[in-house]
């Protein structure tokens, strides 16, 4: 598989899902349990991605400048600072710690 294959398959899948919502009669996902699972699936995947992105280096768990950067980001989101500002500050914190260390 090349990077282009991955991109094409993933894009086709996500676009197909969007079309399903608009073209297929509502039914299955309108029910309570599937709707709840779809909702929680998003939460679980995002949380797992945060963990891997913050602590993972390949198959190792490494605590480094990313951890304080994420803590600062969480504090800023709690203060309702806009997304793009938080992302930039998180990068700055990690870059600053690495430059000093």
């Amino acid at each position, binding site marked *: 598989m090349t990077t282009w294959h991955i991109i094409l398959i993933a894009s086709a899948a996500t676009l197909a899902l969007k079309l399903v919502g608009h073209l297929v009669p509502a039914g299955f996902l309108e029910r309570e*349990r599937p709707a709840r699972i779809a909702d929680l699936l998003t939460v679980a995947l995002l949380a797992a991605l945060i963990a891997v992105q913050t602590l993972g280096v390949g198959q190792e768990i490494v605590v480094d400048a990313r951890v304080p950067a994420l803590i600062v980001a969480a504090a800023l989101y709690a203060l309702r600072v806009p997304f793009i500002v938080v992302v930039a500050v998180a990068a700055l914190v990690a870059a600053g710690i690495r430059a000093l260390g």
Partner: protein
Amino acid sequence: MNERTAADATAAGDGDGEGDGAEERSTAVRDSLAVGLATAIYGVSFGALSVAAGLDIWQTCFLSLVMFTGGSQFALVGVLASGGVAAGGSAIATAAMLGIRNVVYGMRMKPIVDDVDPTTGRGSIWRRIAAAWVTIDESTAVALAQPNDRAARVGFWVTGITIFVGWNLTTLAGALIGDAIGDTRAWGLDAAAAAAFLGLLWPRLKRFQAGAVAVAAAVVATLTTPVLMPGLPVLVAAVVAIVVGWFNLFDRRRTS
């Protein structure tokens, strides 16, 4: 998106047809432009992170044009950044699973955006495809927040189109920036990716159940990282959502 907004929208849906609604529609346009422009800006971070993950500028722009759903886009490049092409299967699966919520959004938006032809009783297929293409968190949220169906339709289209145009332009800008800066770790872009995921997760944590799933999924992903191929820990963590969602565990309102 949570059940409260969906319920609000159902309750508000009956208001259609009273007065000409011009004021509601111009409010909808204002809401849409505010949300749309704010959202479009962070295409810069996607573009930069995507190039940092090893995608080229064409591949990065293709994702924003065709995939066009932020969570899946960030996830795809995030998994590829940690596992490379070998993690391609996991990258596709993660992006696709994050796209499942768009099915739910589409079902909620269909009756609002469908402009049914009174003679044939059917909506235009092209309009439906366009609507599906721009069905994302923000266009759905703005539409559901409007007081009646006509304002909701305006909100959906203006938000969706504003973000589509803006997101693609800022993706290109971000990709060019990412291409120019070279060593992405020194610039803290790996931490920026984590902060971006946190920003997508944050508004979904209002309920206790969601918070519990987030913590458990993060723990599972961390614990399985040393023993599984890169990309797989995220998929394993998704099982948490299926188990908790199926049995409706931890279902109590957060009281703070």
